[in-house]
């Protein structure tokens, strides 16, 4: 039987406000446990929440970016449950009247087809603290630094049909919130977390299958793996005649396994009701228009600009424009290094590959746009061979603050383009390659081209990799074809 997968996402994005959503405490990450938790964050008796205006501005900017309705009046509610890292015993969130109503995000699939993913709504809420189960034998440590960090929870309609689609959408959304500057997008630190709702149904069937929700996926790779794994699990069960249970699941990316956390029957009754400590928040047209004026360039517009301004291919432009950090790094590189195409190749090639292989985020990319730009300059002006350029890139990657020119000097990687010097090397090398020369000269033009490579290797070796390969080639042709 053919199966169709149906995927919807819920995305929690931490808003990049200076202070928490209901208190004046700093939201900076990485402080000593419980040093960024005030009386309000600790839910000390008698303390009261005051809503952070900036969180609303960011939510409105998000709403505008996804073409959504903005609620002129939104209401915070209390979601009641007990957990040690939830200080008040309820989470303050929005349910009936969220700040952002229905909207949509358009994505482009790998085969070039366009697809619209609808946003059901997005609401503001507070993050919980963290429970630390390690390091405390038989006990749990509670760190409330994160408690009260503003989150926007974005809920999509079940509009995605493959894991790949879901990842494209997730990346696009990541690009939108980071471009807006409302979220730093650092998934490794939990700044953006994805819950995936997955169900399968026989192809052609209208009704949705029973769905499961897998929570807190913190990388695109895990998200993709998890969906594949969950789809497989569900199909296997259905093929065996076992019904899917509506449940919440936890996924472990390292082992690529998931397990049931709780079923629908075990779910809490959250007893939502409007929070009496916070009045309904009323937003006027001026506030919305002000947010609209502050909207920065978004990925779609940036992609078009990159094509027009830098002459990039649609694919390169799209790859570089989605992630705000990547786009910014690209433009910095071009500013210093001029050649946009070369800059795009390096960012999407060497740099991306290196980030991937080290599982690093663009946010902690160790190379600056100025450095990359300087590198591009030295490639364009012929100072560096591609081999030399890679060596410099390696050096930049592991050093702080190094200058490209100083590295070239120090490593003696300046490409030799002095024709006389290169001719001497060619003569020396050819002196010991009589057999190959004879073979070459007997060959036809087509075969000759192939045989050229056999000379280049020894030439590069003899020049310590510094000989200009283009010039070597010319000199070699001239000498061999004589």
């Amino acid at each position, binding site marked *: 039987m053919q199966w169709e997968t149906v995927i919807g996402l819920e995305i929690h994005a931490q808003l990049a406000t200076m202070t928490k959503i209901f208190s004046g405490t700093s939201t900076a990450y990485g402080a000593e446990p419980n040093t960024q938790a005030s009386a309000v964050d600790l839910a000390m008796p*008698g303390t009261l929440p005051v809503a952070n205006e900036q969180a609303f501005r960011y939510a409105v900017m998000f709403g505008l970016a996804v073409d959504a309705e903005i609620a002129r009046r939104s209401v915070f509610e209390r979601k009641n449950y007990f957990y040690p890292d939830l200080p008040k015993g309820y989470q303050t969130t929005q349910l009936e009247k969220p700040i952002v109503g229905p909207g949509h995000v358009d994505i482009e699939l790998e085969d070039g087809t366009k697809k619209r993913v609808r946003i059901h709504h997005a609401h503001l809420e507070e993050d919980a603290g963290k429970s630390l189960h390690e390091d405390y034998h038989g006990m749990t440590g509670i760190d409330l630094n994160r408690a009260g960090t503003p989150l926007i929870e974005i809920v999509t309609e079940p509009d995605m049909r493959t894991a790949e689609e879901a990842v494209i959408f997730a990346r696009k959304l990541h690009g939108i919130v980071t471009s807006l500057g409302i979220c730093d997008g650092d998934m490794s630190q939990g700044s953006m977390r994805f819950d995936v709702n997955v169900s399968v149904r026989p192809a052609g069937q209208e009704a949705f299958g029973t769905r499961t929700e897998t929570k807190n996926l913190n990388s695109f790779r895990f998200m993709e793996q998890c969906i594949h794994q969950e789809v497989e699990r569900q199909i296997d069960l259905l093929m065996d005649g076992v019904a899917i249970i509506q449940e919440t699941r936890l996924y472990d990316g390292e082992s690529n396994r998931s397990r049931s956390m709780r079923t629908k029957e075990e779910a809490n009754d959250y007893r939502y009701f409007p929070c009496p400590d916070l009045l309904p928040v009323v937003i006027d047209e001026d506030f919305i228009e002000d947010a609209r004026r502050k909207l920065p360039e978004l990925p779609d517009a940036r992609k078009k600009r990159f094509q027009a301004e830098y002459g990039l291919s649609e694919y390169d432009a799209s790859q570089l424009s989605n992630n705000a950090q990547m786009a910014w790094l690209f433009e910095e590189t071009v500013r210093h290094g001029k050649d946009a195409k070369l800059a795009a190749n390096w960012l999407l090639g060497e740099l991306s590959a290196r980030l991937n292989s080290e599982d690093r985020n663009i946010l902690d990319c160790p190379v600056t746009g100025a450095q990359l730009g300087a590198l591009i300059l030295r490639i364009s002006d012929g100072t560096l061979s591609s081999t030399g350029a890679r060596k410099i890139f390696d050096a930049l990657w592991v050093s702080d603050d190094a200058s490209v020119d100083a590295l070239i000097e120090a490593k003696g990687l300046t490409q030799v383009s002095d024709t006389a010097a290169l001719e001497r090397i060619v003569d020396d090398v050819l002196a010991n390659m009589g057999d190959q020369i004879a073979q070459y000269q007997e060959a036809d033009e087509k075969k000759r081209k192939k045989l050229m490579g056999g000379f280049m290797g020894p030439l590069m070796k003899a020049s310590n990799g510094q000989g200009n390969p283009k010039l070597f080639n010319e000199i070699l042709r001239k000498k061999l074809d004589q």
Partner: protein
Amino acid sequence: MHDKTVAELSRDLAEGHVSSVQLTEHFLDRIQEHDGHLNCFITLDGDQALNRAREADERRKQGNATPWTGVPFAHKDIFCTEGVLTTCGSKMLANFSPPYNATVAQRFLDAGAICLGKTNMDEFAMGSSTESSYFGATTNPWGSNRVPGGSSGGSAASVAARLVPAATGTDTGGSIRQPAAMCGITGLKPTYGRVSRYGMIAFASSLDQGGTMARTAEDNAMMLNVMAGFDPRDSTSINREVPDYTASLNEPLAGLKIGLPREYFTEQLSPAMDRVVREAIREYEALGATVKDISLPHADLAIAAYYVIAPAEASANLSRFDGVRYGYRCENPEDLLDMYTRTRAEGFGREVKRRILVGTYALSAGYFDAYYLKAQKVRRLIQQDFIEAFKDVDVIMSPTTPSPAFVQGEKTDDPVTMYLEDIFTISTNLAGLPALSLPAGLVDNLPVGLQIIGDYFAEARLLNAAHQFQQATDWHRLAPK
């Protein structure tokens, strides 16, 4: 000295007849002498009070005293006071010393007032008799076997017994006015949002309001001058100018239109109570007021709506008492669930648990619409009744309670009878209106309160009406033996 009002003590301090240290020592001595029997105080803060009194005397010498500088008073133990135990009458917070001041506490501190201690109350302000306190019941100074009312019973009894000239209170369904009535003092619940709730331990957030308790309307006005005002830390506090509440006390009452809701003068009211209240209203007529019968058609729904909304909010407000961060934690918890259940089972008293259960039930899936939403609709109808009524009248008058102070233990086993204690006071909390209770006479040698309800932000008018009555009568001067 202890028979003097805040206004009189303030004048004596200003004129140098007495020092704050002398006043503070005097009232601390009175507390030592009488509180063993009355149990008005949970915590006394004598040493710090004397230090502050010395500072106050110094400040007065420097010439930057406020009317409150050096005047002793007490806080209901629901207001957080930095470094001083704040228990809310509960075992749950018996060891809780807040690292911050409630806005109300800070304002009195800034004014230079001397807090002598923290007064007893029903646990988490849930009660009408101050019998549910973990620290034992408070006795009404008017009768050794009588309750002082509640939940601000410690404040009311301490003012009535002249242990302090004034005390703060909070009123969620009548918790200032009912004990004020039963102890023969004057108490005001301001408009919701007039006084900051920051640092005031929440019972039912949409109904709670801090207020004033003293013997005279004038002293209440002096207290409100300190307490009222916008607080950026309380989103429900209202940013609106605060008048000098003492400035309008002496305005004549000629032409004041008084409404008497017929729903409040029924057979529930004993003939003796009815007589006292009617007598007081005749006094107002003598002062130039006119009286009109009015109707508050949804009055009979108030108790039912209140006992859904207040417990619903309380059930969430009290979730933070989980044994994790502060307050009581059970001994040797086996695991998380054990810690939660035993901490809350052992830390909360019966009435608090009852209300948490009622509130949890009212908010549960399948019941929310029938209880919580319906109650909110009723609340709006009740509010609408008052808005209609205030189109025709300036103030509404009624008895504060259906009967004078009852005997201790009489209603503790019958929560519904206890809830009916607040039958005349609860509607104003649901509507968010200001209301005041002042002594209007005696029944069986026990004080009876007259309630005056005003339109939104009409505190000055209520205090003016009460003050004029107190200029013409002596009920507020009566002291328990």
